[in-house]
């Protein structure tokens, strides 16, 4: 029995109407995925007390540290001190704790003294301000949490190897997260054996996976608060 032609026609019609005019390339979808994971970091921080009722706050700011409501993210990795575009970062404050900043797609320097990309980086705010003032690249030790975002359906072992190399070079303070839209038993095994924090199939259609990541991020913020 061959496939029903009307089924294929229905798919064709819906496919055309579902496509985002702005996110039609692999790179653009990757940007969108990073923004989506950024939104989960923000939600996790709010859940852990970055709200006025608990003495905290969470704002969005531009490179001049001015409040903004027009969030603008990078299409490719760049420097934290870049002023070519008014890129946005979030400022998180927990009561009585050092403030933090959340950046998307910035370069960080590690033990090997080469620039590496952090898809999402949570840094100490005073260090981030110093980096912008001195036009220098943040050091891994100034990063509290970092997230590698992979919008790939078929993860291969290279992705896991690259991640292990990245985390070996960039030793962040609290934790690294490997977050992917797809999954792979091999990648999971590799990262689990190396005691890495990994999250597969983190997409809106898989709420259990999204919640699991949210709780892990909240745990990261909880530990940060406990240590400071």
């Amino acid at each position, binding site marked *: *029995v*061959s*496939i*029903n032609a009307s*089924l*294929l026609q*229905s*798919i*064709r019609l*819906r*496919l*055309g*109407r*579902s*496509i*985002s005019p*702005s*996110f*039609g*390339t*692999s790179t*653009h*979808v990757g*940007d*969108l*995925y990073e*923004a*989506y994971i950024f*939104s989960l970091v*923000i*939600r996790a921080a709010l859940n852990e007390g970055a709200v006025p009722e608990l003495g905290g706050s969470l*704002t*969005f700011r531009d490179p001049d540290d001015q409040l903004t*409501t*027009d*969030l*603008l*993210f*990078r*299409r*490719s990795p*760049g420097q934290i001190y*870049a002023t*070519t*575009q*008014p*890129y946005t970062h979030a400022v998180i404050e927990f009561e009585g704790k050092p403030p933090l900043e959340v950046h998307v797609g910035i370069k960080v320097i590690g033990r090997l003294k080469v620039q590496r990309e952090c898809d999402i980086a949570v840094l100490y705010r005073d260090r981030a301000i110093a980096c912008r003032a001195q036009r220098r690249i943040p050091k891994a030790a100034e990063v509290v949490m970092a997230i590698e975002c992979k919008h*790939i*359906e*078929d993860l*291969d072992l290279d992705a896991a190897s690259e991640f292990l190399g990245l985390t070996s070079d960039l030793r962040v303070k609290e934790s690294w997260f490997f977050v992917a*839209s*797809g999954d792979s038993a*091999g990648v999971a095994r590799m990262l689990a054996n190396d005691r890495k924090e990994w999250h597969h199939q983190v*997409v*809106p*259609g898989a709420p259990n996976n999204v919640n699991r990541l949210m709780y892990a991020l909240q745990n990261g913020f909880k530990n940060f608060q406990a240590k400071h």
Partner: protein
Amino acid sequence: MTEQDYQQTYQELVTMLQDLQLGWVIERVELSVPSDLSGYFDEAQRQAETASTQAVLTKPVAKMAQAQLLRLIEATERIVVDTTDMEGELVNFLAVQGERLNGPISLGFVADEDTVTVPTMIDVSPDRRQAATELRQFLQVLRQEVMAGVD
């Protein structure tokens, strides 16, 4: 269903994606061969080496075509539907943040090299969300039909 049926459906999907400038989705599927398919490829090669000129389509070859088609269906669903879902989630996120910060919030993307800041903005209409929901349902029906195809 025969190998030819799978290939024909695969080609139909390929044409749809190419018409919408989504050839990269096909490339992703064709570039990566999961390890669980390697056995089928080995079997297909063995058959090709030993088959007569009137080769009979056998189960492993049909299964390989089936698996490849299933992977394309899954990639299409993940990339097209998930993208709409993510945009929808971000629109909701911006609405919540706007409420929290007492003003509308927008989200866009821009590159360093862009000389004029005209960011790509997040926007997902109810029609697109509806189309994506229906697309997911139709792709699930297609997946079920394809999975039921090889005895």
